[in-house]
């Protein structure tokens, strides 16, 4: 494959839940590669409580 023919596209998003980035490679209008990396921000939390008598 002639890598000079590849078009690279990148993107990202950031919100309260995640920071995500992705990279795509296109060849003659066809998506040939897409990788995604997600950084999770929001954990799952359980609250332990005790009852009163």
């Amino acid at each position, binding site marked *: 494959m002639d890598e000079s023919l590849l078009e690279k596209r990148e993107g990202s998003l950031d919100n309260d839940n*995640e920071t995500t980035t992705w990279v795509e490679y296109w060849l003659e209008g066809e998506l040939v590669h897409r990788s*995604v*990396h997600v*950084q*999770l921000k929001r954990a*799952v939390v359980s609250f*332990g409580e005790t009852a009163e008598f």
Partner: protein
Amino acid sequence: MANTQAMTTSFKVDLFNAVHAFNATGIPAHTVSTADTFKAALYITTATMNASTTAYSATNEVSGTGYTAGGVTVTFGTAPSSSGTTSFLTPSASITYTTVTLSTSFDAMLLYNSTQSNKAVAVYTFTAQTVAAGTFSLTMPTNDATTGLLRIA
């Protein structure tokens, strides 16, 4: 000094380690000294993974080249800990699906215990994605009482 009603922090850590057994029914055999194996499976956007999910299911799990049903093993290299009154636990490495093609949009990951009948642990959601001959990775937050992936406050 005064007495203060509370669930003890040590108990919150013990929950992660399966130390206590309040009922004799269905208690897993944790007399062994090895940790269970936990896995992470991905689900398409039409799935209904939520707090009611009790176990891993292949229904609406992603499928595609390079992806094995059931997902990948999650590494917990750091023992559960606590800070203040919050216990926490976070995988010690990113969860990575390498060289996969996942053409149907997915937006959820189920963390489950493959050693104990695939019992569900937690569901995490993110913006819907697809992957083409690439890598999908979930990078873990800092392992502390504020951002740890699993926390009992």
